[in-house]
């Protein structure tokens, strides 16, 4: 895996990703994996506006991402991959067995979710899905910004 960050964040492209992680890691491209966004030109324009021109933004559905991931991994540039929710992460990991880590960067409050960390709220079902990912060999940690501690999945699910 040469992508520097595999991140679950319901805000997708935003300041923490572009500046907080992007600046210190010198990101050159961001892959946004989301079935809805990948089919909406308007949504894609919105997300592009938050990214400096020198950073390439690639939009993909889960199916497209599963087939294109080897090419992104082989890209010599620094890249990030973002998904907006746990189900998308699980779906992608199921199609790409070599995917071995996910950073939970922001899953916010919604009805039925409980606070696990300041920036992570999960239903019991979502917590179980993250533990199942970990049990299959995916390194799942929670970390909003690079200067914070990476919290192991066992500490927040």
């Amino acid at each position, binding site marked *: 895996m040469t992508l520097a960050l595999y991140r679950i964040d319901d805000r997708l492209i935003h300041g923490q990703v572009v500046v907080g992680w992007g600046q210190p890691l010198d990101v050159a491209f961001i892959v946004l994996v989301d079935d809805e966004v990948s089919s909406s030109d308007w949504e894609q324009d919105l997300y592009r506006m938050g990214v400096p021109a020198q950073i390439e933004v690639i939009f993909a559905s889960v199916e497209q991402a599963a087939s294109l991931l080897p090419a992104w991994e082989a890209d010599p540039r620094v890249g990030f991959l973002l998904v907006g929710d746990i189900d998308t992460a699980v779906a992608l990991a199921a199609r790409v067995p070599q995917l071995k880590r996910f950073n939970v960067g922001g899953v916010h409050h919604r009805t039925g979710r409980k606070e696990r960390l*300041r920036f992570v709220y999960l239903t019991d079902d979502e917590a179980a899905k993250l533990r199942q990912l970990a049990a299959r060999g995916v390194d799942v940690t929670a970390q909003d910004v690079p200067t914070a501690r990476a919290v192991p999945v066992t500490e927040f699910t």
Partner: protein
Amino acid sequence: MSELRGVIVSHAAVAQALVSAVTAITGIEGVLTPVSNDGCGTEALGQRLREAVGTGPAVLFVDLPGGSCFTSSARYAKQGGADIAVVTGVNLAMLLDFVFHRDIQPADAARRAVDAGAKAIRVTSS
């Protein structure tokens, strides 16, 4: 004076600080409403915007031209049609101008705010 309102949408406490500064300088209250994205996902931030805007026309003043504050504001404006305009790069100068010039359409107020805000950005030393 029209019912045109301003809603400042920002990271952390920037929006609240700008509202306080406008009130301190002008004495005008109740025209600007702060919205922070603190602890918000997309859904929660959209709800905060709905509550802040209410039913009337509004200009949304967003801190950055990208990110969660911007994307949520742009989505909200798309639903609101001509009644909602969005300005990015909010600064104090544009807000001070806005609170005294609200008897116009949201899109015109947004353009005016951009002009006022840009005029305040300058280099004053070599």
